[in-house]
């Protein structure tokens, strides 16, 4: 099987999520990459060095500069004439593009695969990870997105893929990029952070969130999160929300502070490697999933932890 992997990049470097997608694709067959963008010679070179890569298709065109799916999906669909599977990382970019490609190919996409069980069989999370479905495609071609935390990252060196320019595609003329506000780099993104410190309703106010949660996150270089209850109570903005209807995260360490552990919240963080819970209610459900639980008053325990860590 010949696979075509979407290379997600920032214009200069290949993003990590791509490397997990390469590993998933390599379980299906030959790995070809697609680097699309505006001025992507550097990315194409880096992509060709990824271990196990056979060929790198490079579509260098201003129309592909901002990953606009209206422009990119027809390009991918055209390349898919000579490939059997399109594989994209399940990032916001991959999720934006892949279904548009799938519909152009009349293929039912399989989203966020966790494992490759056979040539057309995969596992994927449903109900925010509360159940795992094993699914088998009957379509002639495959369109997959890959959950980055579920696959090892392919090595970024050792490969020698042949770089080949693609002239197909252009501007569909129905969409344009206006601008971006990418979060300041002094705090990691919630979805890719190694450590996350989350606060819940027990904090009682946005002032207490600032006073108790933020210093610990600062000290650990962690991302900030919150439960839906804390968001609904207005302690923090919506985009802090970890949970079924918020962000799904899987950091190395997740601190759940003053969070009882509602189903909704657990669905968003239970794949974290290590969960630390601090709560004064020893019967809180969060302790059933926590690797390290501390039954204590968070208003004294967390500042003490911040001081000692």
């Amino acid at each position, binding site marked *: 099987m010949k696979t075509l992997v979407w290379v997600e990049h920032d214009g200069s470097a290949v993003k990590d999520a791509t490397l997990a997608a390469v590993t998933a694709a390599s379980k299906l067959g030959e790995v070809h990459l697609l680097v699309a963008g505006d001025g992507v010679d550097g990315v194409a070179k880096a992509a060709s060095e990824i271990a196990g890569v056979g060929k790198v298709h490079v579509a260098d065109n201003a129309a592909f500069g901002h990953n606009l*799916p209206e422009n990119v999906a027809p390009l991918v669909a055209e390349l898919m004439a000579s490939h059997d599977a399109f594989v994209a990382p399940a990032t*916001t*970019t991959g999720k*934006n*593009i*892949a*279904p*548009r490609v*799938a*519909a*152009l190919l009349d*293929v*039912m*996409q399989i*989203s*966020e695969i966790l494992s490759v069980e056979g040539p057309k069989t995969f596992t994927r999370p*449903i*109900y*925010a*990870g*509360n*159940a*795992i479905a094993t*699914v088998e*495609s*009957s*379509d002639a071609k495959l369109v997959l997105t890959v959950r980055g935390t579920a696959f090892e990252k392919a090595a970024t060196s050792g490969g020698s893929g042949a770089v080949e320019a693609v002239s197909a595609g252009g501007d*569909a*003329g*129905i*969409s*344009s*990029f206006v601008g971006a*506000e*990418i*979060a300041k780099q002094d705090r990691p*993104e919630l*979805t*890719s952070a190694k450590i996350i410190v989350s606060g819940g309703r027990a904090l009682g106010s946005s002032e207490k969130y600032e006073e108790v949660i933020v210093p610990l996150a600062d*000290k*650990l*270089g962690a991302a900030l999160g919150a439960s839906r209850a804390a968001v609904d109570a207005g302690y923090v*903005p*919506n*985009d802090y*929300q970890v949970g079924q*209807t*918020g962000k799904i995260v899987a950091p190395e*360490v997740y601190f759940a502070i003053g969070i009882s552990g509602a*189903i909704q919240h657990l669905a968003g963080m*239970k794949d974290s490697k290590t969960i630390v819970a601090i709560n004064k209610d020893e019967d809180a459900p969060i*302790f059933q999933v*926590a690797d*390290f639980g*501390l*039954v*204590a008053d968070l208003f004294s325990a967390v500042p003490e*932890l911040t001081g*000692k*860590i």
Partner: protein
Amino acid sequence: MKILVPVKRVLDYNVKPRVKADGTGVDLANVKMSMNPFDEIAVEEAIRLKEKGVATEIVAVSVGPAKAQETLRTALAMGVDRAILVQIDDEVEPLAVAKILKAIGDAEQPGLVILGKQAIDGDNNQTGQMLAALTGWAQGTFASAVNVEGDHVSVTREVDGGLETVKLKLPAIVTTDLRLNEPRYASLPNIMKAKSKPLDTKAPADYGVDTAPRVKTVKVSEPPVRSAGVKVADVDELVAKLKAMGVHS
């Protein structure tokens, strides 16, 4: 401008999904079902656009079982003008839903289709993008702000690491993210009024769409169980455990 809002009836987000013992799926018997939370946000956004004078009519569509009528009545009670139920008891995949919506779009000629970014049951996150491909329209997915400006719509999108704004030619597809708005509750008088709003019932065959699944569910299982770890006695013990793992400032 007319706005089309597809809505799905799903297991309520506060109910813990239980995998059926025979591994065929998640048990939906006798559990609370609600409108998919992202679809509620889509309905709210459409109503706000109507309140601003941008939209003139809002049509809600659901592809699902007879009981999806309740979901459509909720949308009508929130402020949607009329509803279409495309009734089918079997599970319908996003690709088939998108094909049905494409056919409804051909008949209704909406200026905007606003959908939830994903349903919280299948978590596919596909229908809006697929509908965009089938219609050839532009798509603004994971929206946190939507502004209609003449013959364009400007959509601010929640992307990994921040926000991105795109300008799309109308008609266009928008899918909602959490931050777009806070959906209203339907008032009792509006719930009563919704009972007399028009709700048409159709079948997939009326739109000439084959809903046979392309992807077979082989089995559904419980995720690996996370076992509870240890309780630590105090902060010092926690600090020691964390430091042993390499977690420190």
